[in-house]
Structure formats: structure tokens, C-alpha cells
């Protein structure tokens, strides 16, 4: 312990914690700008190295902050400068490094560092190498901004920043129609959710008068509950978009158009968990409204199952992993919704490790397969790429939740929480999902690495990835194995600011059974996957493929199609209608119509000026006559009226 205290003192003396915070935050953007300057020039390997080192620097700084906090240091909160201030609204650029954000920072920078290094190899042949690094570092900056901000609007900056970078990176190969389409879809869907987020922020501002976390949370009890639940709902709508919860989930699968490191970093480890982070960060608000929490949990459970089912049948390796991510995010929301915030965070962390690993492995496979994604065209790859196979196997086991891999600890806790809160339906759903998860994870592993080498039919010559890429993945693999073992330290650390979840008394007695049951279904899933693949490659028979359920799953419950029919197309058609029929034919035509009406009055009465003197004179006389009539009417109005009345009666 002496050593620990020394270290603590060392860090504080050695370097100011706020400096550390700034280094952690800003070194990625420095890297991004450096890479951006060379954005349009040909590949320079140095860029990759510089940027990666800067991210690593950020990681070190985050680690420094982590140690500072871990050893009892005070929470670091800095205000860099004022940002927006108008009326009573005053929002600074303020950053906080507390237990939760530092955990996130650590995860983000760690995974980022690995992905950056990995990308040097992965992107080596791409002409947009420098640009890629610029985007990727910008993403890291935005993500850091998101997790470090000490107010809701700062969070929103990061929130939108990661959205922008996600747009840039999904559409990185902008010459591909599908990539740019997916990028726009992701951005717009996120924006729909952001609308909710903004409304939440508006509500917070008008009811709390501030957007700082600490001030808001301090006042939270003095605000009516219905307002709080509205805030919670709207904030959660924001979270739904970023974390791709149903019904805003379709973008995540399509986002797989981006380069695989991007998928690993953004669409597995970090950005998509921002929604979960928001729920954890605003736990004071969510804790007050258990009904909303219950809704979040239910939706999470539903998404977990829903995504897992889609993952069962998909043949695209990245999409399967993406659905799996979706499913795991569902788990996190269950935990968050049920008030077990630290568990949600814990699963977030472990999931980041093994899912990033899984994606990077998939990246290796793709690289080897010359960007082929269809797992049906792979098989037997373990022979050529043993390292990758091993890493992916570790990740899959972790994902399936097999003891003692990281996934086991976090996922099992969530099931326990569901059971403990007597939400047996949730538990059941999650339990079933656990089995499915195991199944599809191993289905991939089997189809890709085992079985016959189907790729030969397609004339592909796979090769193993660069050594340094594999080495870069190793830390993730190690963490995927061992992260779960640090559960207690983790609890101690984060519950300094997060509420502790207390299991009820009775649960301890049946906890053993629960673990058994869960592990059993996971193992069953694995077994089915392995066995079926051994007997029959491809797993699904043709008859099965014509099954309705298979079709339903294969077409993602037809949801993309429905969205296209119900939202996109009508929107486009309505826009056209508004422009061509309403704007041009009604609004504009009315204006022109008035002008034309005046003009045509002129044309039609032009004949009055016929140039004929007789007509002119007659006009004069008519004028006089009309005046005479009016004179009579004016002077004898009364008598004329009585006369008329007499006639009528």
C-alpha cells in the first residue's frame, strides 16, 4: 500500500492532473490534424505511426488519471473556457475525469491504440491511408469529448462528433454506393435520435436552469417526477439511436460497409456504447423513474433476442458480429434499466475487448479473403491463419460467456440481476439469447476456420496478416480472457460514484444454479454449432431455407424494406409533391396569379381606349350620368327606400 500511495503522490507531483486530462483529450485531435494536412497526399507510413503514438499517449494519460483516481485521488474537473452563454444559459467547455469517465477513457484509448496500430497494416494498400487516420483520430477525440464532458451539451458535442466521424468512416470508400448510402443512413438515423436527446437537454435546461451534471443531479429531487420521466425518456431516445436499439437499429448492420477497424472501434467497442454510457452517466435521473428503467430493460432484452435471431442465419461475417453487438448492447441496457449501472458498465468494458478482438479477427479474415465477406465461401482457414483463428476463438468463447473468460462474469451478472428483480421473462429471454449467442459465434468459427477449404473454388489465396497486427491484437485477447477476474476491483472503483447494486438475500442461494443453467445453454449452443457443422457444412438445409422463419430472419424481419417503403419512399415522394405541386403550383402560382390577374384586367379593358373619339365622349357622358344617379340616390335615399318598401309590401 505504501507503494500505491507513493505512486499516487508521484503522479500528482510529477504532472498536474488537469494537464494529464488535456493530454488525454487533445492528443488524438492533434494526430487527426497532422494526418488531415496530408489527407489528400499519398500514403505515408509515418503518419500512421505518429498518429498511433499520439493515441497511445492519450492512453497513457488516461491510465495516469486512472491510477490517480484508483489510488484515492480526487475527481479531476476542469473548465477550459466558456462556450455558449446567452440569457441564463451558460455552458462551458468543462471536463471531468471521475471513475466512470476514466473507465471509459481507458477502454476507448486502449482499443483505439490497438485499432490504430492494426490499421497501419490493414490499410497499407489503401490510397486514403492518411485520410483514414485523420478520421479515426478525430473519432477518438470526439469519443473522449463525449465521455469526459462535465455537462450535457458537451456530451452532445461528442455525441454529434462521433456521429460525424462515423459518417466519414462508414463512407470512407466513398466511391461505393452502398457505403455512402449506409453512411447517410447512419447519420440520419442518429439525428432522429439526437432530436430526442436535444429535447431532453431543453427540458433539463428549462427545469434545472443548468446543464452541468453535478448541479443537475444535485437538484434532481426537487423536480416533479413526470418531468423527470420525460427527461429520462427523451434522453433514452437519444441513447437508442447511438446504441442502435430497436427501432433505430438498421443502420448498424449497414455500417459494416466501412473498413473493418472502424467496425471494431466504432461499431463495437466505443461509439455504440455511448447510449449505455449516457444511461450510466445520468443514473441519478433514471434511478428516479423505475418505470422508464423497466421499459429500457424490456427493450434491451427484446433487442438482445431479436438481434441474436438475425445473427443466426446471416452469411456475412461482419453482419453477424454486428448483430451480436446489437444483442450485447441489449444486455447492457437490461442492466442499466434495472438499476445495475456498474454491471452495465462492466459488461460494456468486457464487451469492448472481446468484440473488438472479434472484429479485428474478422478483418484479418477479410484481408486474407480479398475482401470476401460471405462465410459460405470460406472454411478451413485455420490452416493458413492459425493466429487469427486462435484469437477469434478466444473472442468467441468470451462472447459465449464461458468461464473464466471475461464475458462470463459480466453477462452472468446481468442474468442474475434480471432474476433477482423477479423479471423472469427478461431473464428467460436473456437466457435463451445466451444460447443463441453461443450458437452463432461458433457457427462463424466453424464455417470460417474449420471444414473444407471452400475458398479454393473461388480462386482465392488467403494469407495470414502481418505479425504486428496479430501482436497488436494480443492485449485484447489477454483482456478478453482475464478482464473478468478483476470484477471486485472494478466494483470498488466505480461504485465510488455509481450506486451499488445490492442483490437480495435469497439470490445467493440459487446463484450457483443460475450459473449452471446459463452455462448449460451456452455450451449447448456451442455444441449444436460444432456438431452440425461437422456433419453438414452450411448448417441449414435447402428445405430449411425455404422456411418462412428462415426467410424472415434472413431478411432482417423485413424491417429495412418496411422502412424504405414506409419512410424513405413516401418522404421522397412527399418532397417531390411539396415542391412540384404545392410550392410551384399553389404558393407560387397564387403570387403569379395575382400579377397575371392584374395584367389581364389591363388587357381586357384595353378596348376602352379604342381611340375612337365617340367612345371617349360617351365615356364622359356615362361618367356624368353615373354621378347624376349617385347624386339622386344620395339625396333621395330615404324617399327611394320608402318607395321600394311600398312596392314590396
Amino acid at each position, binding site marked *: 500500500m505504501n507503494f500505491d500511495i507513493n505512486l499516487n503522490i508521484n503522479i500528482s507531483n510529477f504532472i498536474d492532473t488537469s494537464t494529464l486530462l488535456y493530454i488525454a483529450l487533445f492528443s488524438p485531435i492533434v494526430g487527426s490534424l497532422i494526418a488531415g494536412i496530408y489527407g489528400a497526399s499519398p500514403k505515408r507510413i509515418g503518419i500512421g505511426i505518429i498518429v498511433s503514438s499520439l493515441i497511445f499517449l492519450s492512453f497513457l494519460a488516461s491510465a495516469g488519471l486512472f491510477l490517480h483516481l484508483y489510488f484515492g485521488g480526487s475527481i479531476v474537473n476542469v473548465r477550459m473556457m466558456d462556450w455558449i452563454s446567452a440569457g441564463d444559459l451558460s455552458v462551458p467547455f468543462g471536463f471531468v475525469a471521475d471513475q466512470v469517465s476514466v473507465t471509459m477513457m481507458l477502454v476507448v484509448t486502449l482499443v483505439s491504440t490497438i485499432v490504430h496500430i492494426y490499421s497501419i497494416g490493414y490499410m497499407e494498400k489503401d490510397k486514403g491511408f492518411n485520410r483514414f487516420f485523420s478520421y479515426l483520430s478525430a473519432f477518438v477525440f470526439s469519443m473522449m469529448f463525449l465521455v469526459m464532458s462535465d455537462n450535457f451539451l458537451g456530451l452532445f458535442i461528442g455525441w454529434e462528433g462521433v456521429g460525424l466521424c462515423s459518417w466519414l468512416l462508414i463512407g470512407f470508400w466513398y466511391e461505393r454506393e452502398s457505403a455512402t448510402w449506409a453512411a447517410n443512413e447512419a447519420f440520419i438515423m442518429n439525428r432522429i435520435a439526437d432530436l430526442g436527446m436535444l429535447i431532453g437537454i431543453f427540458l433539463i435546461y428549462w427545469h434545472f436552469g443548468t446543464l452541468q451534471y453535478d448541479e443537475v443531479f444535485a437538484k434532481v429531487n426537487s423536480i416533479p417526477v413526470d418531468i423527470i420521466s420525460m427527461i429520462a425518456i427523451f434522453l433514452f431516445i437519444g441513447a437508442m439511436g447511438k446504441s442502435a436499439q430497436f427501432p433505430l437499429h438498421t443502420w448498424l448492420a449497414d455500417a459494416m460497409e466501412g473498413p473493418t477497424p472502424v467496425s471494431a472501434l466504432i461499431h463495437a467497442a466505443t461509439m455504440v456504447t455511448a447510449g449505455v454510457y449516457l444511461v450510466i452517466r445520468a443514473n441519478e435521473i433514471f434511478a428516479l423513474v423505475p418505470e422508464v428503467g423497466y421499459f429500457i430493460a424490456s427493450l434491451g432484452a427484446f433487442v438482445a433476442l431479436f438481434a441474436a435471431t438475425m445473427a443466426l442465419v446471416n452469411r456475412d461475417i461482419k453482419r453477424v458480429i454486428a448483430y451480436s453487438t446489437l444483442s450485447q448492447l441489449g444486455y447492457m441496457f437490461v442492466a442499466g434499466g434495472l438499476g445495475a449501472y456498474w454491471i452495465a458498465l462492466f459488461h460494456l468494458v468486457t464487451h469492448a475487448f472481446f468484440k473488438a478482438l472479434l472484429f479485428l479477427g474478422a478483418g484479418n479474415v477479410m484481408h486474407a479473403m480479398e475482401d470476401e465477406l460471405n462465410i459460405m465461401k470460406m472454411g478451413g482457414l485455420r490452416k493458413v491463419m492459425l493466429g487469427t483463428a486462435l484469437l477469434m476463438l478466444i473472442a468467441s468463447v468470451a462472447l459465449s460467456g464461458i468461464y473464466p473468460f471475461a464475458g462470463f462474469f459480466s453477462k452472468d451478472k446481468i442474468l442474475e440481476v434480471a432474476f433477482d428483480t423477479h423479471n423472469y421473462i427478461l431473464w428467460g429471454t436473456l437466457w435463451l439469447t445466451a444460447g443463441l449467442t453461443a450458437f452463432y459465434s461458433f457457427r462463424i468459427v466453424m464455417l470460417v476456420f474449420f471444414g473444407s477449404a471452400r475458398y479454393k473454388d473461388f480462386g482465392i489465396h488467403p494469407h495470414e496478416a502481418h505479425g504486428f497486427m496479430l501482436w497488436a491484437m494480443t492485449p485484447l485477447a489477454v483482456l478478453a480472457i482475464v478482464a473478468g477476474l478483476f470484477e471486485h476491483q472494478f466494483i470498488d472503483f466505480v461504485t465510488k460514484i455509481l450506486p451499488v447494486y445490492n442483490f437480495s438475500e435469497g439470490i445467493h442461494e440459487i446463484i450457483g444454479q443460475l450459473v449452471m443453467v446459463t452455462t448449460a445453454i451456452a455450451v449447448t449452443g456451442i455444441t449444436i454449432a460444432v456438431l452440425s457443422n461437422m456433419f453438414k457444412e452450411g448448417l441449414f438445409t435447402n428445405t430449411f431455407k425455404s422456411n418462412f422463419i428462415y426467410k424472415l430472419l434472413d431478411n432482417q424481419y423485413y424491417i429495412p424494406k418496411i422502412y424504405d417503403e414506409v419512410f424513405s419512399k413516401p418522404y421522397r415522394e412527399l418532397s417531390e409533391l411539396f415542391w412540384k405541386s404545392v410550392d410551384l403550383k399553389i404558393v407560387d402560382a397564387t403570387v403569379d396569379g395575382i*400579377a397575371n390577374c*392584374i*395584367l389581364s*384586367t*389591363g*388587357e381586357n*379593358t*384595353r378596348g*376602352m*381606349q379604342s*381611340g375612337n*373619339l365617340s*367612345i*371617349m*365622349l360617351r*365615356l*364622359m357622358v*356615362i*361618367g*356624368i350620368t353615373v*354621378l*347624376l344617379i*349617385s*347624386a*339622386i340616390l*344620395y*339625396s*333621395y335615399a330615404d324617399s327611394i327606400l320608402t318607395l321600394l318598401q311600398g312596392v314590396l309590401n
Partner: protein
Amino acid sequence: MIEPVSVSFESLKIATLMPMLLAISGGLLILLIDLLKSHLDKSIYIVLSVMFILMDLGSVLSLELNSRGFFDVIFIDGIAMLSQIVILVASMLFIAFAFASNRFHEYQYPEFFALFLFMTAGFQFMVASDNLITIFVGLETASLSLYTMIVLHNKDKSFEAAIKYFTMGAVAAGFYAFGSMILYGLTGSVELYKIFEVLEARNFEPMILVIVSSLFFIGAFGFKLAVVPFHTWGPDVYEGSSAALAGYISIVPKIASFVVVMRIFEQLIHSGVDWIQGVLYAVVVITMTMANIWALIQNDVKRMLAYSSISHTGFVMSAIMIGTTQSNSGIFLYWIMFAFANLGAFAMLWASRKRGIRYHERYDHPFEKFAGMVKLMPLGAVMMGLFMLTLAGIPPFSVFWGKLYLISSAINANYTGLAIIMALNSAIAVFYYLKLVIFMFLKDPVSSLDGSAYMTNASISLKVVLGISAFFTVVSIFFVNPILEMASYFVAMSGF
């Protein structure tokens, strides 16, 4: 037997007659010179005319306000002074048009200048009297001179215009006479102040006869001012007469008529003859609107300007209908402002007039003639554009201030509806003024004209006039206050 009449010379106040006498003697002098030595150059006559008008103006300025002269036949009140100043200044500027570079038929006649001076005198009599007989004779003197001068332009169209103008004028003279007869019958007098005294005494009964007499006056002056439906001569006369004279017709006869109309109607309006106000309201609205609409569809600039000046007349008539001191001083403000803009516009037309060159089988100044003018003659186009924008009432150019003041006077008298109609009409009017601007600035030249075609008729004096009017329209904002103060003072002095 009746007593012999003894009249002291002082009581005649010969000074009040001096201005008109000067103009008439100028005319006679010109006739005399021609008699003694014919075939003199027109310049001598122009200079003589200008000199006499100048002297005329001088003697007007030295008049004593609110004085009557010559057995009360001459009546110099504020509006008489003011309108005479306007008439004389405008006449002076317009006669300078005669210094045209080209030979025009009318300027071969020394009589033209004599007629011009007689006409000026006629208008002066019209405004400087409240005796219906003097007004009538003055009016006819001026009108008959004008008809002749139009004819002297010696084109087929000018004959036609003069005949139309004359014939309608004769009918209008009949209206005037009939209206006066009824007034005379009602009051036994032809002097307006006396007429109103008697009418007041008999409480405007029978009202119907008062109305009928005003009705015939509306007919008579409606013709003179060209309000709908008595306006039909307007466009044709503008088209038929030379631009120099058309410009004159659009300014001077109208201000004279306005003064007479003010004299006749204001008192009636204030004495509760509501009919007049109602009818004037209708006439004003119809005149403004219809003239604007007709102006929209014209193909010839001069004809367009004719309709536009009808519309402007309608605008100013509304001030008479409103009948407050503010509105009545607004008439003069407006008309002075309008005079300079119109002067400029017609000067530009006159400058571009060339005998023989025809751009259009019918029109002298079709819009196409000015197409792309900015490329051929930028300064001219800018000038013309300036005058068009001024007429359209774009601030800060002169007419805007008149419009502003009149609309304000309508509002102040609780005629908000009228104010809005006036405003909307200004908006319609913008379109046809812009049409010329568009032709000049935004279109390409149609024919292979060179820039000099637009200034073929320009002489130094014409350019000076152009310069004066352009200068005035641009910096009019600084003249508004003095003019307004002067107008308000004179109008208030006259009791309107």
C-alpha cells in the same frame, strides 16, 4: 340714372395683375418682332420667353399675400402664389426644351412662343382668381393655345391628338359652364367666397343642386386632370404631341386645375357635402388603379408615362378629397417633386427624339428603343433609370417624399383604407417603371444603334435641364423641409 363710377388707381392694385401682364406683353412683343423682321432664329424667342417668364416670376414673388386686385377679380392667396411659382418654374424649364438640336416644325413659328406665353398667362389667371368667369376665360385661353401648339408639331398624330383634346375640351367647357350656372342660380354670384357665404346662409339647401353643380365641375376638371373616365384624351395627346409639350401637359395644366378644384371643393367638403367626398373617393381609387393597370400593358414609353401621370393625378386628387391642411400642402410637395422627375423623364425622351428614325411603325419611343441602353450610353441609361425609379417612388428620390406625405395625410385623416390602396397602387406602378429599367439595363440592344442615338436631339440647355432635374431628384431629401414649410405656410394662409 346710375352714379358715375369713380375708382382710385391704388385700389386697383395693378401689381396683382403685373405677372400676367408681363407674360402677355412678352407674347405680344414676340409677335411684333416677327412682324418687323421675320425669319429670325428661334433662339431669340426662346430667350425672350425665358426672360419674360423670369420677370413674371419675379413679380409673382414680390406680390403681397392675401391681396385682391382689380375689383376683386384677381385674388392672390397662398395657393395662388405657390401654384404660380410652380407653373412659372416648370414653364421656364420646359421652354428650354425648344433648344433642340434638330429642326422641329413648331419652333419655326415665332407664334409658338407667343402662344406659350399666352398660355402661361392663362394658367396664371386661372389660379389667381376666385371668380368663375375669370377662371373660365383663363382656362380657355390656355387650352386654346395648347391645342394650337400641339398641332404645330405637325405630325398626323398631333392633329389627331389635338382634335380629340379639343373636342373633349369643348364638352368639358360645357360642363364647366353648366356647373357655374347652377352655382350662380343658387347664390346669385360667381365669386367663390361670396358663393360659399350664400350657400352657408341657405344651409346648402337644396343639397341636390349643390351636388349637381359639383358634379359638373368634377366632369369639367376631371377632364382637365384626366381622371377616369374623363381621362381618355391623356394617352393619345401625350403620344401625339412632342415629348417637350407632353411633359408640360403632364405638369402645368394639372397644377392649375388642382388649385381651382381646391378652391371649389374644399369648402364644400368641409361643409358636410359628404357626397363629394364619397364620389371623389371612388374616382380617386378608380383613377389610380385603372390607370396603373393600363400603364402596365403599354408598349410605348410616352404612352406609359401618360397613364402613369393619370395615376399620379389620382394620387394627388386623394389629397383634395381628404381636404386637410396637411394633405393640401402635400399636393404641392408632391407635384413639385413629381414635376422634376417628370421633367427629367420627358427630357430624356425628347433628347432621344429624332425625326425620321422610326423604331416602331407607330411609336416614337417603344420600349425596344431603349433596350440595352446601358451598354450604348451608360450615363443616359442611369439618368433615365433614375427618373423611372423616382417616379416609382423608390426612396430617397423626390416623388417618394410626396407619396410619403400624402399617404401620411390620408392616415392622419383616418383614411387608412385609402392609404393602403395608395400604397398598393405604388407597388403596381413599380412594375411598369421597372419595365423600362429592365429594357435599359437587363436586355441586349436590339438594333445596331450607337449610343449617340439617345442624345441626338440634346442641346446644352437640355442637358442643363436634365442635370437640374437629376440633381434635384437625388438630393430632394434636403429640399423637402423648405418646400414643405413653404407649402404649409401658403396653404394655411389661404385657409385650406
